[in-house]
């Protein structure tokens, strides 16, 4: 059984214009001790999904359906008290901006001790030792526990927020774009800390990112989201090297590789649909060069073969479509007013 299974999750936001179905029937699973990359562009629902699992949705958002099974129990069906026993202890969170996890007017020691003593029930002396150990674990000098967050660089703050997330020995951590705001060298160093901790502590993770290269570097499995739905999932090598969904195919040709070819990049023109009133059928169909009539009317079911899941009517033709997807001409002229 998976450590976490998200089944047909629905998350809605109330807005002045109506209900935004930010996550609209998303399904994925994470095995113990492995890192799942959750990728997609802004507005695809990846951060919302992560926040819903963690129970930190903004006030306007709510889980409108589906199940979140973590360590055998459904978080959605739990009372708040039951949820509190799981969240932060067994399941923890690293936000995109470390400043959101850290209190700017408290020294880091006070923040670490608060979590360890009040949530973790440790005594002061044990908590003190544990705080130092956590700092060393993420590559920070324990002397810096006496600092305020503003005395830290961006990379150090992100390390501190990782230490805070690991304080109570969780089985799983959800990291929301943990390296997006960092410079490349610091980004790589923080990813190395994450990989090292994951293998040493046997931690499971969902790493929410928009960057396929981050997935390739740090993740075991990947789930690709588009317009509120997981459209493809599988082992990273399988999905990157043999993508089955045209959106994933597009993404793999859409950005430059520093050591690879400098031939023309292939853009995916157009933009994701409004989630106030999503189109019928496949949500990618309006941007998809391979869409046929059925794609515009019927929702493609998720089909799994081995460990590789895809929701596309033309998945059987994927090898031929992959060749076409590498050509600019295939995607041209999709951007109509």
């Amino acid at each position, binding site marked *: 059984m998976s450590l976490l299974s998200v089944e047909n999750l629905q998350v809605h936001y109330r807005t002045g214009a109506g209900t935004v179905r930010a996550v609209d029937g998303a399904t994925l699973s994470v095995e113990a001790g492995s890192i799942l990359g959750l990728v997609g562009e802004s507005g695809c629902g990846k951060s919302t999904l992560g926040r819903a699992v963690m129970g930190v949705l903004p006030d306007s958002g709510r889980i409108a359906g589906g199940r979140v099974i973590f360590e055998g129990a459904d978080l959605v069906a739990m009372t708040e008290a039951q949820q509190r026993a799981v969240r932060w202890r067994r399941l923890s969170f690293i936000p995109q901006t470390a400043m959101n996890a850290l209190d700017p007017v408290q020294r880091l020691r006070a923040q670490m001790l608060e979590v360890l003593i009040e949530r973790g029930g440790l005594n002061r002396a044990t908590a003190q030792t544990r705080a130092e150990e956590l700092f060393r674990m993420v590559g920070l000098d324990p002397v810096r526990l006496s600092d305020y967050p503003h005395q830290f660089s961006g990379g150090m703050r992100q390390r501190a927020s990782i230490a805070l997330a690991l304080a109570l020995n969780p089985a799983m951590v959800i990291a929301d774009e943990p390296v997006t705001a960092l410079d490349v060298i610091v980004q790589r160093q923080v990813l190395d800390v994450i990989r090292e901790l994951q293998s040493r502590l046997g931690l499971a993770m969902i790493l929410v990112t928009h960057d396929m290269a981050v997935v390739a570097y740090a993740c075991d499995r990947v789930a690709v989201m588009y317009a509120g739905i997981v459209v493809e999932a599988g082992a990273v090598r399988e999905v990157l090297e043999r993508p089955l969904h045209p959106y994933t195919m597009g993404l793999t040709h859409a950005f*430059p590789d520093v050591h690879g070819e400098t031939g023309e990049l292939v853009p995916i023109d157009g933009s994701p649909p409004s989630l106030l009133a999503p189109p019928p059928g496949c949500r990618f169909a309006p941007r998809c060069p391979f869409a046929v009539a059925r794609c515009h009317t019927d929702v493609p079911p998720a089909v799994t073969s081995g460990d590789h899941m895809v929701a596309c009517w033309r998945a059987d033709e994927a090898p031929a479509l992959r060749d076409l997807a590498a050509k600019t001409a295939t995607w041209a002229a999709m951007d109509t007013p």
Partner: protein
Amino acid sequence: MTAVIEARALGKTFGSGRRAVHAVQGVDLSVAAGEALGIVGESGCGKTTTARMLLRLEEPTAGQVIFDGLDITHLRSRALLPFRARAQLVFQNPFDALNPRFTIRRTLAEPLRNFGIPEAEHAARIDAVMARVRLTPAAAWLDRFPHELSGGQLQRVVLARALIPGPTLIVADEPVSMLDVSVRAGILNLLRAARDELGLAAIYISHDLALIRYVCERTVVMYLGRIVEEGPTAALIAKPRHPYTAALVAAVPVPRVDQDRAALPIKGSLSDTPTGGPGCAFRDRCLHAFARCETETPALRVAGDSRRVACHLDM
């Protein structure tokens, strides 16, 4: 090849005395017509300040900016107007670069009016620039407001606004960093096409070497306000001559499963910087530093095949 723009010993110091911050020091560079130069480095390396000085949006405290052979370092507002039309900035964030109350047509007409282009030419110029950024037919877009466009479409308008006065130089600071991956490629392709077709000189500022490689033949790497290396982009990536460039290249994420995951060839963090005095600013993070690096600031020297490097080692 004559340079469209040239920086000579360009410098910017904020504050003075003991609290002075040398944001940019001794920057020499030049860009010819039809050529694209990349400036890469991490936050705080001075790349954005350098670009702003080249565009005279920031006053240099040292050195000169030469545009088309003319020293423009100290020109004042009215005298700068012809330069303003010919050197254009492509803004980073398309979501706040455009006036939300202006239609696309008015957004594009505004610079024409500012630079005194006769009203009779406006419509033809607007149509031409809309075709160049592939927003066609123009009539379908021109009466829309920014909120009706996607990020990628807005960035095309931002590019159109920069191109419409007929510049010979464009400067783009992180031109796609605010955009989704799927639409970045479209903007980068337009930038490449505009540069090729119009023979523009272009300067791209980015922390992303992969992006720079895609659009620039030549690249300078900056570290703490100074150029540490310069060379043809492909050669600089294949064989870095400065230890900092080597770390920067190794850190670029690549979208492949099989890749080098060895520790980066760099230690410490940006805060590990010797303050004041002579010596190389990178020495405390360098895996190859030796005695001379403590006492003598390495000068930017020619290192064969159109490369320059500021390092005592010969990597």
